């Protein structure tokens, strides 16, 4: 099996293709739904029901799903690279555990209501995620030698602690609250205006810029710490930067839609199978394809049993899992088991 190296042309072709694919999905997805939509009516008459559905219900939701999926996939690529572990996901180091703990605490205390358009639930989730990120980072800094491995150890432990505390919160909640918590933990993309999209956008742009800028260095880092250091990379600085960048993406996304699983694990995997491991192309493509993947899953989740919506996280696994297995069996046998 052979692998082409990155050239300007390859970069432009792949990114262009991914861009076209995601644009087409983004344009088509809002037209799909339980209610038939007439695009001409929606566009010509701003006060029509069609326009209302398109602009208030579907378009924000599709854009939201695209941002969330993109952020999770990019974050997954980065966590897998810095931990040098293809089984890592955005949720491995406890960011989502902390975010979820913050959210279920907010529900327990009855803070899920919003005042003047500001909802406390995402803020509580962000606070939880930030706390965990800082604890994991300072724990690994106390080690003699700061490395991705120490991040992994403290992150996994914190993740378990958060999971235990979430169960404890459940235990002390009544049935209604416990049900709300469970639904939140399943993840949901139901937004009804552009407000959430606009709030999330700056977080994602900052995180993305931070990660993309160092994608070349991520290549040598993903090959090993010594490998990177002997090629002139300041490993500790780079790991710290990537850790906080990827945590920012994951934490902000989880705050608004709960921990939607599988996107951040499977999309990086699939893209690595198709494109190789060069992070310069992997990161931007993961953003586009992660978003596209989640938009497709969400479109199915909200239509297949309409008007009932199935939590999108169920579909990311049901669709992504078999597709991944199929790719694995057809394309990469020799990479996992040979050599």
């Amino acid at each position: 099996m052979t692998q082409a190296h990155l050239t300007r042309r390859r970069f432009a072709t792949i990114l262009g293709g991914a861009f076209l694919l995601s644009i087409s999905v983004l344009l088509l997805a809002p037209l799909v739904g339980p209610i038939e939509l007439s695009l001409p009516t929606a566009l010509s008459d701003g006060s029509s029901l069609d326009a209302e559905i398109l602009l208030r219900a579907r378009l924000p939701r599709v854009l939201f799903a695209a941002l969330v999926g993109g952020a999770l996939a990019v974050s997954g690529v980065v966590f897998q690279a810095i931990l040098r572990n293809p089984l890592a996901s955005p949720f491995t180091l406890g960011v989502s555990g902390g975010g979820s703990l913050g959210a279920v605490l907010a529900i327990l205390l009855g803070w899920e209501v919003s005042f003047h358009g500001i909802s406390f639930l995402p803020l509580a989730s962000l606070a939880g995620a930030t706390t965990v990120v800082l604890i994991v980072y300072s724990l690994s800094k106390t080690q003699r030698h700061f490395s991705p491995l120490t991040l992994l150890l403290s992150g996994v432990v914190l993740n378990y602690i958060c999971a235990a505390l979430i169960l404890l919160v459940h235990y002390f909640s009544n049935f209604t609250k416990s049900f709300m918590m469970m639904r939140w933990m399943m993840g949901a993309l139901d937004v009804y205006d552009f407000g959430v999209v606009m709030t999330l956008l700056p977080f994602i742009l900052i995180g993305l810029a931070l990660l993309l800028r160092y994608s070349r260095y991520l290549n040598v880092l993903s090959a090993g710490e010594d490998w990177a250091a002997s090629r002139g990379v300041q490993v500790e600085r780079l790991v710290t930067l990537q850790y906080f960048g990827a945590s920012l993406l994951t934490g902000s996304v989880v705050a608004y839609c709960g921990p939607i699983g599988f996107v951040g694990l499977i999309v990086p995997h699939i893209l690595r199978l198709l494109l190789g491991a060069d992070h310069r192309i992997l990161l931007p493509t993961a953003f586009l394809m992660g978003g596209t993947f989640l938009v497709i899953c969400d479109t199915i989740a909200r239509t297949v049993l309409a008007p009932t919506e199935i939590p999108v996280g169920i579909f990311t696994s049901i669709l992504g899992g078999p597709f991944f297995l199929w790719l694995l069996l057809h394309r990469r046998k020799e990479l996992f088991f040979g050599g």
Partner: protein
Amino acid sequence: MGSPLFTINQVSCRFDDLRVLQNLDCVISEGEVTGIVGPNGAGKTTLLRILGGLLKSWEGELSFRENSMRVWDQRLFAQQVAYLPQRTQITFPYSAREIVLMGRLPHQSGAFFERAEDHAIAEESLELTGCTHLAERYFTELSGGEQQLVGLASALAQLPQVLLLDEPTAFLDLRHQLQIYRILRDLQKERALSLILVTHDLNLAENFCDRLLFLKDGKLVEDLRKENNTFALTGPLIEKVFGITAQKEASGRFILSYGN
């Protein structure tokens, strides 16, 4: 003897309570092949990692080309010094060429794509190590020997003036061992490369090196230079360093045995 490359002055290193290196004093010269030999756990790899800037928790004074290692910019250092580990384990699907191109990183400041020059140097490094035919194959699919050759090509793509090698052939078959030392020998002559090599293979060290530093329990116990193409190796020295019995035959070869 060339000008000083590394000046090691009272360098010590400890891992928690374990003293790995103790008050090392030594000057390593330009243009030579310096071998660091000694038994397992003597501190050889630790010393090499300190010289390569990979391990920073040491005490004492250490300078590279007259400047303290503590002030060297990591990227500028990597433009001059390359490091080849015992083996390179990579999880992700990079091609051999991508691995070699990574060696160009210290020479590019912030550029997103490699330049034509980088591709040319990578190609040349692949040729030097006889890996041209492996270029588009996945690194993970290659045999241990091929991986080590590609790793060497990546180090050479840094166009280093100094190459640090940590038992580079420990896991390789005889043919790959000889091939790697042949390449290194040629390069050392052509490019005036300085080599610092960690090994516990005395035969190899004797043939290949200009100078041997014997480490035992973190201390430098002997420093030998090649004269008239041989080292003044004695039975007692080998016995002292490796803790084995060594008897010299008339032919000059040592008969080594464990215990008496």
